[in-house]
């Protein structure tokens, strides 16, 4: 196998002690910044860029890539333990992860997330190794109409994902869509809900909304609880996932890997939609969907696997086409240019050592991450033993600091406080923040791509159905939307025909 030679040489590059060290440094930094919401991998890499000028290109990229996927795992820790999703792609992890933590199963959640992330990442790297040139074109086939269809599908998933009252979920999602419209209209420059405030010109960032609604809202709500009942410190039982947990998660991890790999290739929004889709798929497949939102381990395994797989496959468009799929990739692109390497179609041919060095460093980085994460789970879950009176202020501090670092502005800190109050009221009146936040993320994706599609298609809506990918996605949309009704009708007919008394089994759980 001649073609495997460069791949194996790539491993030689990675196993060089210097590169291993930089890989480790990158992963550790990544995990640390992942814990601080706001200061994302993009900003961190930009700040650390000068450090890489003096080292070999491959070493530099190995470290920067390490920061990127290390941060993915760091974000999981805060999502599960503190209900702080640092990125849109980990919002769904909160649903079951935080509940599991409250049930004393934080260790299980973090352990499964680590294992899922490792497997998802590894599957994605294997995909990257063998399929990169084949699937790269996928990113180019996605134009505005395809993104519109994808965003529509995503918004439908929001409805599927949320537990509790459907009406309240819809109201929350509608509010999220409304929030997504704030800021200067990117098509006409018109001011929308900015109230003449320049700080609102670009709309509201994801971080203040998520941090406020989930994090601060929860803190405020707990304050109230504590006055009613004496604080019961959370018991931290079974730090390790049990054999049953692992068995239960196997399918979720497998499906999450595949979903994450393919959706992650899409620039813009791929990772978020992959984690949502993974969650929705698990919920649909479950025998008892009502467990979701109440600490279902697959609800953590699926999305966490998917978002890590997506993070890895987002390297494909960068390395094979020269297209950065997200802000972090754009900065890694810049770092490569500074090193005199041009990412793009010729990279594999011109610089096989660099290409395979980076790809293979991800195998090693993922193993390092797993080795570090597993023992650290035991340390992290101890955080939950800290009394609320101490933990809550620390969480609040992380939240405020994190939102300040987005763009060094006090305005964002103020927004966190406002959304914290909103989050508290929502929880008090039985609204879930999840649908709001996810609809907010998808709303801008949907709006801009719909309007862009109509410009590209010259106002002809039929164009959505003549393009194969958007047509397929829209068909899936219709099927998913109508399926519960069809199923209900079908079930009703079946049960009336049999006239048996077991129709209490039939649940209309859509």
């Amino acid at each position, binding site marked *: 196998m001649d073609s495997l030679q460069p791949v194996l040489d790539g491993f030689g590059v990675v196993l060089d002690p210097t590169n291993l060290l930089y890989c480790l440094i990158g992963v550790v930094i990544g995990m640390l910044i992942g814990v601080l919401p706001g200061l994302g991998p*993009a*900003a961190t*890499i*930009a*700040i650390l*860029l*000068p450090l890489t000028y003096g080292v070999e290109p491959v070493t530099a990229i190995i470290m920067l890539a390490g920061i990127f996927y290390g941060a993915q795992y760091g974000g999981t820790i805060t999502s599960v333990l503190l209900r702080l999703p640092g990125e849109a792609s980990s919002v769904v992890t909160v649903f079951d992860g935080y509940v599991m933590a409250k049930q004393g199963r934080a260790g299980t959640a973090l352990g499964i997330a680590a294992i899922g992330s490792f497997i998802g990442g590894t599957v994605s790297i294997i995909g990257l190794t063998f399929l990169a040139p084949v699937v790269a074109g996928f*990113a*180019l*086939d*996605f*134009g*505005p109409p395809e993104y519109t269809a994808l965003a529509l599908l995503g918004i439908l998933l929001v409805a599927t994902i949320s537990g509790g009252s459907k009406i309240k979920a819809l109201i929350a999602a509608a509010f999220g869509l409304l929030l997504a419209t704030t800021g*200067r*209209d*990117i*098509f*006409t*420059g*018109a*001011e929308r809900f900015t109230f*003449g405030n*320049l*700080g609102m*010109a*670009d709309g509201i960032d994801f971080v203040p909304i998520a941090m406020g609604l989930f994090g601060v809202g929860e803190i405020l709500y707990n304050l109230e609880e504590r006055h009613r009942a004496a604080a019961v410190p959370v018991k931290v039982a079974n730090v390790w996932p049990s054999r049953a947990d692992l068995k239960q998660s196997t399918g979720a991890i497998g499906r999450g890997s595949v979903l994450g790999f393919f959706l992650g290739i899409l*620039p*813009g929004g791929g990772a978020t939609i992959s984690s949502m889709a993974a969650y929705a798929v698990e919920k649909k497949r479950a025998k008892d969907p009502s467990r979701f939102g109440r600490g279902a381990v697959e609800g953590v395994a699926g999305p966490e696997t998917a978002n890590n797989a997506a993070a890895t496959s987002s390297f494909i468009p960068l390395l094979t*086409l*020269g*297209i*950065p799929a997200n*802000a972090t990739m*754009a*900065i890694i692109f*810049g770092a490569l*240019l*500074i090193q*005199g390497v*041009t*990412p*793009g*179609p*010729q990279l594999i041919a011109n610089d096989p050592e660099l290409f395979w060095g980076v790809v293979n460093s991800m195998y090693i980085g993922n193993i390092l991450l797993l080795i570090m994460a597993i023992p650290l789970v035991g340390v992290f879950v101890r955080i939950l033993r800290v009394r609320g009176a101490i933990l809550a202020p620390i969480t609040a501090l992380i939240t405020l600091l994190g939102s300040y670092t987005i*763009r*060094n*502005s006090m305005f964002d800190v103020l927004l966190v406080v406002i959304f914290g109050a909103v989050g508290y009221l929502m929880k008090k009146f039985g609204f879930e923040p999840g649908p709001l936040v996810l609809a907010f993320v998808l709303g801008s994706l949907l709006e*801009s791509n719909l309007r*862009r599609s109509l*410009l*590209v298609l*010259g106002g002809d809506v039929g164009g959505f159905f003549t393009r194969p990918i958007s047509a397929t996605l829209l068909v899936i949309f219709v099927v998913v939307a109508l399926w519960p009704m069809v199923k209900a009708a079908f079930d009703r007919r079946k049960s009336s025909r049999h006239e048996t008394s077991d129709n209490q089994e039939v649940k209309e759980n859509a």
Partner: protein
Amino acid sequence: MNFPRRRAVLGVTAASALLALTACGGNVGSDSSSGDFPSGPITLTVGQAAGGSTDLIARTMGAGISDQLGVPVPVVNKPGANGALATKEVAAMPADGSNLILLNASLITITPLAVSEDETVTLDNLDVIKGLSQDDYVMVASKESGITSLDDLKKSTKTLTFGTTGVGTGSQLAQALLLAQADIKGTEVPFDSGSPALTAVMGNQVQLSTIQLGEAKPQIDAGKVVPVVVFSDERNTFLPDVPTALEEGYDVPVSQYRALAAPKGLPEDVKAKLVDAVDKTLAEDSTKAFNEKNLLTPKEISGEEVVKQWNDLATKYKDLTEEYDIELSSK
């Protein structure tokens, strides 16, 4: 084992002493002690997110100025409203040389055409220290479109789609002016930034886009997109075979320029020191190599020249858009 620890303690003491000094300096420094500028860190604010080309320029300049003046020059990103937020904030800071901002010309020359009056930013409240570089726009076509030159564009009978990098950007202005002057029919499709606009051309989702050269160059070299025209006054040295709009007979002089500025009212000696530090930084080989790698053409002109050129451009763009009845936004 003892020695390093003691040294660390010493370091901390020194640092806190420095901090105390800086704190004092902030109070009295503005009138009397400008002679010992710089007495503390100089903050360089950037109105764009970390990692973009503006940010990279700021970080390169920051590191150079820091070496020259011997004080830290941290770069602080305050993205928002194309940089208007950061610029207004810095303009209101004390004019003691401890606050700098990296300006994009488009904020002064083009954005005012697209936003309401109270959101426009002018150079009136700033002391421009030095012009830095020029970043050119290039119009690229997809391979499938078959367009390789302006003539192809004019001959095309189809209504083509043109990607821009957003409302109120040089990309939008340059493209709109060219289409109006050459009487080309087209639909303008705004994207969020250069990268998605370029990706859309690569996938032939739109047939053409105007983006900054640095972003487009790798794909031009790889033959994935076809350069049609550049919008600089003279041919770009990195793309010598591509004609300018000007030489094709169209009056579309649009480039992105960058400059360093401080709040208005900088003491003369402080300004002199800053200009000197910037000049020395620009003369460094590392800065030249940086420009080369990022495909930036040096445009190292004095602060006074920057003010004159940018204000002239602002007037010129205003006249041109009025002449050809172009609206960048629906303000």
